[in-house]
């Protein structure tokens, strides 16, 4: 199985790839984890991982900056229904629009928008940074073996507000509910960083690698 971690100049891809390698090894899953920004690799991938840190607009510009990359992703994920995993801003990019430093277009794969976190409690710090416990809203194969109320590592100032709540698999509480896991068809995304969430994160990655949507 060929798993491509999409390299478009955003974030720490090495630790992401290492976490996927570890999760595969622990669960005896045969997987070649490849970090690549080559559209050909995306086209031939069995599974696609889109990481992303920083600003929504920068990440979108980064994706668009690689000729043919978005087309290859759309072809693989939408047309050929390959399992897709977006992480942090990689998840947010599935939305219709990101409203960070002006509006920028998302991939439009899961209906919703990405907006600033505005906690009702003014004492809460932004970014939402650290370990927060997941509240499961809808069952999903990604959550197999994950303890209720398990903690994941978050660091973000913007949140994915999904138009259809059935696409929200899990939330966290931070001055109001925030989407933690979003899913639709063959696509999943986590606002938190599974590659930084120790045992829980590795389990979610392993679940993705064995997921048959």
């Amino acid at each position, binding site marked *: 199985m060929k798993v491509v971690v999409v390299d478009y100049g955003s974030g720490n891809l*090495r630790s992401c790839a290492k976490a996927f390698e570890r999760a595969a090894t622990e669960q005896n899953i045969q997987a070649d984890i490849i970090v690549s920004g080559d559209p050909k690799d995306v086209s031939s991938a069995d599974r696609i991982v889109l990481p992303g840190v920083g600003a929504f607009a920068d990440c979108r510009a980064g994706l668009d900056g690689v000729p043919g990359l978005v087309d290859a992703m759309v072809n693989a994920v939408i047309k050929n229904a390959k399992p897709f995993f977006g992480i942090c801003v990689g998840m947010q990019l599935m939305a219709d629009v990101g409203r960070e430093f002006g509006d920028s277009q998302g991939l439009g794969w899961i209906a919703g928008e990405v907006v600033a976190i505005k906690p009702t409690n003014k004492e809460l710090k*932004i*970014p939402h940074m650290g370990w927060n416990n997941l509240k499961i809203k809808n069952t999903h194969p990604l959550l197999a073996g994950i303890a209720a109320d398990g903690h994941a590592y978050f660091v973000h100032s913007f949140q994915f507000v999904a138009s259809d709540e059935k696409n929200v698999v899990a939330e966290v509480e931070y001055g109001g509910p925030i989407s933690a896991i979003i899913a639709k068809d063959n696509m999943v995304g986590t606002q938190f960083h599974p590659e930084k969430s*120790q045992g829980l994160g590795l389990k979610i990655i392993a679940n993705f690698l064995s997921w048959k949507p």
Partner: protein
Amino acid sequence: MLKSRIIPCLDVEGGRVVKGVNFVDLVDAGDPVEQARVYDAAGADELTFLDITASHENRDTIFEVVNKTAEQCFMPLTVGGGVRTTDDIRKLLLAGADKASINTAAVTNPEFVKEAAEKFGSQCIVVAIDAKTVAPGKFEIFTHGGREATGIDAVAWARRMAEYGAGEILLTSMDRDGTGKGFNIELTRAISDAVPVPVIASGGVGTLDHLVEGVLGGHASAVLAASIFHFGTFTITEAKKYMNDHGVPMRLDGI
């Protein structure tokens, strides 16, 4: 809800772990990668490496340490010490660090923080502030391991760094560091209450009550300690349970 974090810190020199008392009398005590693995298994919420390597030729050793650690530890990793250019940050992130901590370079060139935050995102830029109480309710920034006064007001400085894009402030109570007498709580609270970003309290932890005070009295989002864990006075697990039992909600998964 979001939990408070406990962050063990490893001081690294030439690829080896050391921990100083008031930044002198260093004791060599182990392999950083092994130490990191122990802390990871014990449920540390994050890990920080502080590279105190002075000589230029040994500076690259930290990249190897970060590289090996990132292969084995799947938790957030911050690296500080000698971060002066965006190229330093890029190399650390590529090696596997999640955040880079800027200290002296922020004081000598505040615009560097802005540049770094714009280039890499605020989420990976920590500004380390070393401060002392200089008069009642008055706190000042010090550099060079606490030896050189700068005349800069710590609260105003922290606000400015947050405005420049620091995603987090690592605040060390320089009048307490290495003493085991606890954080400078007044200082910690003054900074935590002044900035919109999370503050990590550091410097002076000797007991588990000090960790609790850092959050409840100092309003810190996270507490950092080195000696109490490194020399086995307390384990991470003990510290997390103690804090959780004393009014500071902590992540207790898997411990």
